[in-house]
């Protein structure tokens, strides 16, 4: 069922998960850390939405808030998260009680965590752990059916079913992460949230798992919220990307547009922090300074102490996440926005932040424009 919904949703671009104005604090009183401030995100049916950011940027906190997995002292203090599994049906995830959440979690929205070794139970075989989730959500299934389903799940991620009796320590890191993905997909969820799923893995294993994941998405049609610090990876696999800095979303765009035509200085800095595998070797500068301490955030735009384009206004006023003023017709159709005073139309934009954006948001368009344009910066 989810496959059908996913495919049709992808074509029509129906929003599946809508996050607006979400704010998360850690602690109360004067020492409060505002980990996520006013986050607006939309995940469409069948889409891969990448969430990029450095450690402490609030990307994992945002994911935990969406799934209501946030633990004290983390608190959701504002905003809304609407889950729309079908047209006309909306669930307010922030208002849902524990019972409703228990039904939704895993069967509709599942999570793959970074550290598979910690997420898997070391004293239970992976077969037991896989059948456990089936038993909890589908009590009517017989033991044999559960076993067969667990075997087919393992097979789906490229692990032979004679591994059902294995314990997590008997599997390689890549296989453990595959088991995590199989478990997350066990109930055919519509949304899979992946928090740095391949960060601890070697580059070859990472590539294998990502290829499998993209194949599975094609087949099953689920949407993915993919969280990582590795922007270069997201540019390859995501349909659209949101960039976070110090708890704020600073830019949202289709993956190709973000890569070819970044609008926020932080995104530009991140893109020029990854050395290229081709072309002449040039000195890259990265971004000066360090990410800020969330307890002592700078006033105005949180990025201004590190920004090479800083203006007087940036030190006093925080820029809203708006559609860039210079956006062409093509861009108006995209959900593209940046939180930067340079883009509000009142001042001249440096050319590197005003490059023309390539095509639209559909995956087909993304692949069509990816090849011919030369790498223009860095």
């Amino acid at each position, binding site marked *: 069922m989810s496959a059908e919904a996913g495919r049709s949703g992808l074509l029509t671009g129906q929003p599946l998960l809508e996050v607006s104005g979400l704010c998360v604090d850690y602690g109360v009183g004067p020492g409060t850390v505002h980990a996520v401030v006013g986050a607006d995100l939309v995940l469409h049916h069948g889409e891969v939405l990448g969430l990029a950011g*450095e*450690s402490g940027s609030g990307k994992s906190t945002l994911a935990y808030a969406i799934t209501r997995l946030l633990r004290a002292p983390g608190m959701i203090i504002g905003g809304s998260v609407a889950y729309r599994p079908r047209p006309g049906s909306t669930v307010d995830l922030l208002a849902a009680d524990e019972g409703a959440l228990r039904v939704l979690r895993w069967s509709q929205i599942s999570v793959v965590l970074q550290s598979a*070794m910690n997420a898997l139970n070391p004293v239970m075989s992976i077969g037991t752990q896989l059948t456990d989730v089936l038993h909890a959500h589908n009590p009517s299934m017989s033991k044999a059916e559960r076993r067969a389903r667990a075997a087919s799940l393992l097979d789906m991620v*490229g*692990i*032979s079913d004679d*591994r059902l009796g294995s314990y997590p*320590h*008997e*599997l*390689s*890191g*890549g*296989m453990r992460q595959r088991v995590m993905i199989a478990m997350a997909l066990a109930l055919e969820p519509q949304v899979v949230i992946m928090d740095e799923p391949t960060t*601890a893995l*070697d*580059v*070859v*294993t*990472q*590539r*294998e798992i990502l*290829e499998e994941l993209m194949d599975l998405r094609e087949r099953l049609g689920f949407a993915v919220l993919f969280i990582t*610090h*590795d*922007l*270069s*990876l997201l*540019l*390859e696999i995501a349909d659209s990307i949101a960039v976070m800095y110090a708890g704020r979303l600073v830019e949202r765009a289709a*993956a*190709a547009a973000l*890569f070819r035509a970044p609008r926020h200085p932080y995104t530009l*800095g*991140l893109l020029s*922090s*990854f*050395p*290229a*595998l*081709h072309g002449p*070797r040039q*000195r*890259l*500068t*990265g*971004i*000066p300074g*360090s*990410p800020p301490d969330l307890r002592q955030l700078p006033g105005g735009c949180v990025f201004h102490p590190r920004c090479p384009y800083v203006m007087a206004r940036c030190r006093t006023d925080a820029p809203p996440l708006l559609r860039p003023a210079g956006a062409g017709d093509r861009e108006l159709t995209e959900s593209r926005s940046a939180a930067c005073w340079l883009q509000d139309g009142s001042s001249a934009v440096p050319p590197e932040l005003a490059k023309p954006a390539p095509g639209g948001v559909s*995956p087909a368009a*993304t*692949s*069509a424009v*990816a*090849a011919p344009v030369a*790498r223009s910066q860095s």
Partner: protein
Amino acid sequence: MTQLTGTAQPPATGTPLLEARALTKHFPVHGAGHGAAGTGRRRLRGTRRLSRGGPDGGAVVHAVESVSLTLAEAQITAVVGESGSGKSTLARLLARLIRPTSGELLVNGSPVRATRRGGQSYARLVQLVLQDPFSSLNPVHDVRYHLARPLQVHGLREAGTSMDDAINALLERVALTPPSQYLHKYPHELSGGQRQRVAIARALAVQPRVLLADEPVSMLDVSIRLGVLNLLGDLRERERLAILYITHDIASARYLADTIMVMYAGQVVESGPAEAVTDRPEHPYTQLLLSAAPDPEHAGPSGRPALGGRGSPPSLVTPPTGCRFHPRCPHAMVICADAAPPGFDVADDHQSACWLHATDLDAVQAAPIAGQQTSQAIDQAPRMGEETR
């Protein structure tokens, strides 16, 4: 019979400072079914004689196998490989934190002797910077203490200069300015990049000629990695240090290094000028690494090259016969399973240890191995040392 000694040696253009000849390290395996590292490391100390290749015939992890390299003045050599390829063991061998099973180290052309005083003078020449600045600095001591210790231990403070002057100069060398702002900070008060700079400053305190950097930026945030990499590049220019840069990220190796050595399962499979290795990779493993590396230029389904092989590195307790890469290699031939390939010269200063470069193979040797393409079975096997990651 083909020996791996002399496999793929990188070029040396400057004055060679540190040379390793056929370094080999085998770790003994304790008990069946246990990993080689972790708990094993502690026991290792008591069983040093075994680890030096004793005749007891027990199982060993072939962590580093006959690696030769030369670190020359003002040159950056990158060692690239996956986890478990032996690159950190190589760094520890070069820092003389562990003894090689066989092979030798030469400093300025003369062999290093294993005396205690020799150890201290070696440490003045070769310093190691570790991967994780969150654990390589002592949390109960401030920056000043960390930088004063090497100066005291080695008696390096020049007459007439105060300790604070010496420490300030060190902090300035790693661009932690103004130094007074950092002197009395504790590690938890510093960001990751600042901590790694303190760790580098500590290594620089003894005025070493060789800096071994073991994954110095992999724990750091993306936006500050470049700063630390550029610092290493500046130190090479300014102080003419010989630098060994160990990394799993081939793009950063291309960015920083003059020479790249690619390691697989304890052996060097390819070495050469950085751009030659990344732009014209000759060894199938290097090609696999490059095909797997994230590359936004290949975004979209059409642009990405097919992955040049599958599966995981082999167990190093019982490494594959012949070429250690042959079970995963898409080009594997009969000879690859029989004999380890020597390093073939493929271009100036560019070597690749692969039988594909041999011109005199007969038809039997060059026949593909039956059933090689389905590497599914390899991937299913758990491997040694996986938990050490």
